[in-house]
């Protein structure tokens, strides 16, 4: 097995096991830390897919900021133990798991057995590792500049809204 294949199997095992732990562990702080591990694993998978800049951005944004926020909020809540971690009803729970399983089975079956990926596999043979950051930035700033600016406005609105949602009276700068 080549080194690339070994790396892929190891990383995908890591990602799937941490993803499972997010859902199954009852202590929410452990769930959050396992999700951070999943993000780091997905970032490493991006590296194997030659998307180096996106891997770095995934680390900085997701694993370094969003998950830190989740972990901080969970630690501030200081939940002693989960009174009821999973859903109560047995039958509805079984239906939910069955439906998720059917969805996953259908998608995986379509990917592996179906014929929809034949055309794409033919194109993949001449892959090059060009300077992807430059191509990515040209695409983002020249073709999708409206979307980029709209994202900026969205982030501004979100920042103002979050501060407005969590204001409380008092504090050092209170009037």
């Amino acid at each position, binding site marked *: 097995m080549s080194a690339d294949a070994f790396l892929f199997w190891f990383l995908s095992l890591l990602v799937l096991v941490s993803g499972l732990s997010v859902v199954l562990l009852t202590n929410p702080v452990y769930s959050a830390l396992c999700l951070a591990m*999943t993000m780091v694993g997905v970032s490493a998978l991006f590296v194997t897919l030659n998307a180096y800049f996106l891997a770095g951005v995934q680390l900085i944004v997701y694993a370094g900021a969003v998950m830190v*926020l989740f972990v901080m909020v969970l630690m501030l809540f200081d939940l002693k133990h989960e009174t009821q971690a999973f*859903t109560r009803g047995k039958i509805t729970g079984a239906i939910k798991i069955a439906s998720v399983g059917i969805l996953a089975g259908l998608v995986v079956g379509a990917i592996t057995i179906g014929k929809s990926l034949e055309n*794409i596999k033919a194109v993949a043979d001449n892959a090059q590792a060009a300077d992807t950051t430059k191509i990515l930035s040209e695409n983002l700033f020249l073709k999708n500049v409206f979307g980029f600016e709209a994202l900026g406005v*969205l982030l501004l609105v979100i920042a103002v809204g979050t501060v407005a949602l969590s204001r409380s009276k008092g504090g050092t700068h209170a009037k």
Partner: protein
Amino acid sequence: MQSSDILSTIGLEHYLVVSAILFAMGMAGVLMRRNLIVMMMSIELMLNAVNLSFVAFSKFNNNSEAQVMVFFVMTIAAAEAAVGLALAVAIFKRFKEVNIRFFEHLKG
């Protein structure tokens, strides 16, 4: 296909299957868990699975448009996580609980 071929050459299907299983796990988390914050984390897991499939398609199609889409998804997911957490903090201050079985009714 020989079995050693699946194990040693990594093609598009491998990444897509990983992404599908991750997505299914996230969906199971949203449906099964009762803690508000863990549900939001499962949504983040689903978004990550989608990002992974986008980047896999981008590499195997030699098309960089998908990576731009990943940018947008990442930004919006981070923004949504921020707002969701602000709401969760407000709920916790009011109810002292983040288990959603206490908010099943719209009263209060």
